[in-house]
């Protein structure tokens, strides 16, 4: 038997069997959607459509409808871009990095965290695209042969690195996510009775049969994809930070940016996972699979990455003074005491103080507290990007061109709209896709399931009864559970 130390908290609570895991995950898909789902979906859809409307208006009228001006050419849009990309860092980190570290607790959250990643990167990608103004020429960022002579994109520019980084990240994440989904779609295909869903899941499952060789390949592909996705996670946000760090703007031009951005991305990504998971586990009755222990693990990640972010803020501040560069020092004094002081101090409060509260065990194991902090963290991380971007450029070298950024209602509409669209996608995912990796959860049931962990170690003796490894017992346990329901 593959047992785990008894002292470790079980990851799957209660008396689950393989059959029960399948039933628990498939139930929300097979049942009618609850009324709450329709209410949330409608709200998200209305907000999302409002955002789409704002984007249409923007494309029809021009970038002038945003609150940008001659001094502040990047503000709200790039803030949202970096915010969404940051949120999109948790999913692949959970499924790739934690897979390499053999963290079994990832299995409760990796599927939905990855879905969240993909939807967040969709939202992120939207901002540079609409910022182009002429969306239909977006393909110009690709190195395509063209009729303008030898006109290639600039491979020296971090903006182009970003094009490659984000599109690689998005497509590899989708592939990674989908390869894991195939066996679970096969489970659904073999369960559902109604003809149309059966057909749909049959197409989605690609004819997966669960042969030993297929599983052999599956395990290797997961491992190798995790291996290549891990440096990808770190490279993507490093490259996003290069957009700023390779410029000569005081406040942007710092070597600390890549690690600081990556830590911030993981920090905000995990916070978003917490926000979604805490609601989802309740709404879909998955408390046995995503419980306090998982929340605590994620809170520890939030605490560690939050501390890295806090250290980076203070390092930046110190270096701006220590460097002796007047402009650099002013950029930071201006952040803390200038007209955007409130954004700076919101960022400091939300990102530096709140994760430190996670040192207290009762707090990091409290679901309500976690939920509040997870939202606070994402507000803080939005302000971080706003502070970095706007405060660094709104007072440039010439005081005559000093300016302020005030978002227009289109700025607000597009931002709120992406949140709506994100939830539209996520709600659809939660309704039709298996939100937990069914196959993978079954592999940890015997090593980390509560029932199996508490079994007395009797299978060496021949005295019947408790030996869970015998086939008949297993099926009885299964049917017992069914009767209880």
């Amino acid at each position, binding site marked *: 038997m593959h047992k785990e130390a008894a002292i470790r908290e079980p990851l799957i609570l209660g008396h689950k069997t*393989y059959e029960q895991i399948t039933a628990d995950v498939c139930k929300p898909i097979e049942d009618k959607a609850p009324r709450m789902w329709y209410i949330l979906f409608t709200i998200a859809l209305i907000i999302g459509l409002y955002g789409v409307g704002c984007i249409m208006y923007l494309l029809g009228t021009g970038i002038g409808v945003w609150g940008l001006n001659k001094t502040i050419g990047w503000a709200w849009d790039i803030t949202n871009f970096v915010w969404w990309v940051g949120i999109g860092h948790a999913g692949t980190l959970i499924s790739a990095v934690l897979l390499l570290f053999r963290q079994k607790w990832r299995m409760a959250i990796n599927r939905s965290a990855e879905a969240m990643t993909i939807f967040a990167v969709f939202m992120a990608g939207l901002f540079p695209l609409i910022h182009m103004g002429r969306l239909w020429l977006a393909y110009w960022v690709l190195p395509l042969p063209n009729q303008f002579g030898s006109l290639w994109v600039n491979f*020296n520019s971090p903006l182009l690195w970003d094009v490659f980084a984000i599109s690689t990240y998005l497509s*590899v994440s989708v592939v990674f996510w989908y390869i894991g989904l195939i066996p679970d779609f096969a489970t659904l295909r073999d369960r559902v009775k109604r003809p149309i869903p059966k057909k749909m899941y049959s197409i989605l499952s690609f004819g997966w049969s669960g042969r030993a060789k297929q599983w052999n390949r599956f395990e290797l*592909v997961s491992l190798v994809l995790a291996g290549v996705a891990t440096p*990808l996670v770190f490279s993507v946000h490093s490259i996003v930070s290069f957009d700023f760090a390779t410029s000569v703007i005081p406040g942007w031009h710092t070597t600390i940016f890549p690690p600081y951005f990556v830590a911030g991305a993981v920090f905000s990504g995990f916070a978003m996972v917490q926000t979604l998971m805490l609601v989802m586990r309740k709404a879909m009755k998955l408390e046995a699979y995503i419980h306090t222990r998982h929340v605590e693990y994620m809170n520890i990640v939030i605490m560690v990455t939050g501390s890295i972010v806090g250290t980076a803020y203070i390092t930046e501040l110190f270096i701006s003074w220590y460097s002796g560069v007047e402009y650099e020092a002013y950029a930071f004094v201006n952040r803390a005491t200038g007209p955007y002081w409130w954004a700076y101090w919101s960022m400091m409060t939300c990102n530096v103080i709140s994760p430190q509260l996670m040192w207290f065990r009762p707090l990091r194991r409290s679901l309500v507290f976690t939920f509040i902090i997870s939202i606070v963290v994402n507000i803080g991380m939005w302000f971080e990007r706003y502070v970095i971007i706007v405060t660094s450029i709104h007072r440039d070298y010439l005081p005559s061109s000093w300016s302020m950024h005030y978002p227009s209602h289109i700025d607000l509409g597009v931002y709120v709209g992406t949140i709506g669209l994100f939830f539209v996608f996520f709600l659809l995912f939660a309704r039709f896709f298996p939100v937990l990796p069914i196959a993978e959860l079954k592999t940890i049931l015997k090593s980390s399931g509560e029932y199996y962990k508490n079994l007395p170690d009797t299978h060496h003796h021949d005295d019947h009864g408790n030996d869970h490894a*015998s*086939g008949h017992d297993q099926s009885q346990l299964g049917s017992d559970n069914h009767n209880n329901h």
Partner: protein
Amino acid sequence: MTEKIIYAMYDDDDVLKDGAKKLVAKGVKVAEVFSPFPIHGIDPIIGIKNTRLGIMAFLYGLTGLMLATVGMRFFMIDDWPMNIGGKPNSTYLDNMLAFVPITFEFTVLCAAHGMAVTYMLRNKTLPGLPAQNPDPRTTDHMFVMELRMSQNSQFTEEQLHDMLKSTGIVELDQKEVK
């Protein structure tokens, strides 16, 4: 010629694995195992070799690395050297550092997608293909061992049945295919 296939159903992965061990020790050839999740350690027992997809991923990665290098050398050095702040750009090496991020991303892109496509093709899992698991429960909680009579000609059907029954199966099924 018709072929007889015996499907032995188990409801536990460890029971199936122990059963397969016993059968193989007696000289039975296990043709296939269908399971709802990977059974660790089953592959060497039933004689499945480790996949070589990892090697393929490496080769796809190398292809990406090469394409990115050749591409950027052509775009930025040969075809149209861009003058950016007067930085040296007459050879690839002069400009190489700026090409590292995209070279890396493109290597990963090719390795991941190349491997994923090969995985789909080798597994015969593509949109629209029919499922081949013998019982719908094998994607839920049942584990099936497939024995083919033609591969086990030294045993009679009854002998195989008896041997299977002693390994803790819950169901036995038989099918004839052409």
